């Protein structure tokens, strides 16, 4: 039994032209993620990755379909689900005038728990920033702090929405290392990215989304062999980037 199961998720928004027609941000997406997996949701901007995550997290209403996490229905039992998941959002801003330690203990208390905030900061290498305000952190530090906030309830599943976007290679590798450590300790991780290198390096399994649909799913190597088996030049096979471009086209998205 998968730890996360979604069937035919649909999210639609009315088109702004008042024609009564809808724009389908997510269109019949089904997912099955096993415990202990690092699952990657890939796709160009606007493909529906974030909306899919937000529906699973209970942040956006599910218009059609259903999803359950650890056996709890996301729509019917959102509170139970929220207690089981940890979430890092794309926007990682926090209250002004409150330092990292205070924010972490706030988040811990929202779950009715008590947790050693300092050891959490140590886990993400931010001990020396304990008294700093989040606004003073660098991009990589902010992302690591966001992950620390997502860990306060020792979640079964950790959702990471574009955790490395905008980070330099060093910060990126540091974050990958953190994700691997958490996963090695038994945490299931669902992340979105449009960085193919990241998907190939981190994910056990990936799903590629475009225009609200999942258009391919499988293990990275499996997808490579299926969609880009020929080596581009000297290499024995293409990269995931080739898979990505093959499946979603080369046109620029806004």
């Amino acid at each position, binding site marked *: 039994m998968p730890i996360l199961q979604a069937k035919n998720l649909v999210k639609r928004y009315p088109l702004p032209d008042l024609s009564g027609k809808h724009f389908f941000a997510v269109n019949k997406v089904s997912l099955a993620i096993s415990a202990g997996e690092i699952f990657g949701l890939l796709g160009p901007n606007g493909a529906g990755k974030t909306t899919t995550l937000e529906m699973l997290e*209970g*942040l956006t209403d599910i218009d059609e379909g259903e999803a359950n996490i650890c056996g709890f229905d996301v729509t019917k039992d959102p509170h139970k689900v929220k*207690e089981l*998941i940890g979430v890092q959002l*794309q*926007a990682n801003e926090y209250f002004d005038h*409150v330092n990292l330690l205070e924010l972490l203990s706030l*988040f811990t208390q929202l779950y009715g728990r008590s947790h050693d905030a300092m050891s959490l900061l140590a886990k993400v290498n931010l001990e020396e920033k304990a008294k700093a305000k989040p606004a003073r952190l660098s991009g990589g530090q902010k992302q690591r702090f966001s992950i620390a906030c997502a860990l306060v*309830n020792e979640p079964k599943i950790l959702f990471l929405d574009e955790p490395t976007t905008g980070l330099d290679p060093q910060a990126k590798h540091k974050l990958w290392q953190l994700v691997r450590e958490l996963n090695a300790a038994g945490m299931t991780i669902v992340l979105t990215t449009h960085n193919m290198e990241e998907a190939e390096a981190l994910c056990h399994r990936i799903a590629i989304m475009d225009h609200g649909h999942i258009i391919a799913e499988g293990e990275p190597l499996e997808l490579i062999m299926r969609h880009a088996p020929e080596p581009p030049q000297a290499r024995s096979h293409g990269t995931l980037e080739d898979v990505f471009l093959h499946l979603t086209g080369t046109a620029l998205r806004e």
Partner: protein
Amino acid sequence: MSVTFTMMKTFLRILSRDRQALFFSLFFPLLFMFAFSFGSRANEESFTLGFTDLAGNELSDAFIKALKEVPEFSVETGNESDLREKVVDGEVKLLLILPPGFQDAGSPAELKVVVDKAQVRELGLIMPMLEQVLVQVERQLRGEKPLFSIAVEDVKARAQNYLSFLVPGLLAFTVMQIAIAGSGYNIVEYRRKGILKRLFVTPLRPSQFIGGLVLARGGFCLVQLSVLLLIAVFGLEITLAGPLLLIYVLIILGTAVFLGIGFAMGSLAKTQQSIMALGNLVTFPQMFLSGIFYPIDVLPELVQPIANALPLSFVARGLREVIVNGAGLVELVPQLLGLLVWLMVSLLFAVRLFKWKVVAA
């Protein structure tokens, strides 16, 4: 409950560390109070009268002496051209010239008065007093007894000057400003920064979030208003005629009403700009219509019923009744009822409109 308490603690922390907001929330009401207190003090000062005595006889001496005894006047003697300049400068309110022929000679002597007619308000006060003094001197010289005398007794029930009218209004106005800024503006900021989203991906419930913010803001508002009250009482010598408890009841009710209105606004507005516009739309008319700076009675009759029904009017009127007129609970019933109705309306809207979820992209 403990989560509500946790949110309250966090908001108190944020509020107490936001020095700038703290400063400005007290700065403007204090500025107004002190500006108007200096204004009203200036009125109590004596008028300086210029005096040029061209007669230099017994009669003119007696006249000057009588003038100097009037407490409202201070008299400066000198030559005409110097004093004329002082009238122009405004240092001397009025220049009185006694002609050389100023004596008790049967025919009335004409006194020349040089004034700046732009200062009508003060002239209206000075001229009758001056005439009074003239009559007194005349009676003294002629040995006549006055037919009437008036004894004025001050019951000192209320200090009915502008400042004591203004202070309760400013307190009410501050309640509105702090409460609306504290809920509406913050909600929009938190939503735009994604903080609301982040909070509500935890098991936090909207009621706990709102409860925490209301408690923190309410508590803070009480402290800020207490500071203003202390300054008004000890710094500006405003006397609180009615019970302090009722003042606080009005402040708490007013804060709750405006927090509710702020929450509703914060849910309607999507951007910081639109909440500013919406905030002005709600606060500006009340600032001018709710009897903060002048009584509602001076407004056109058509507007008065609307003005009287505004939430700020209930707070301002209530505070004025208690602080100035010493009203008790019974006299306050209409204001309290009005505020309770507004409280229900604003809370209804606050809860119905509050959304932390992302609506449309």
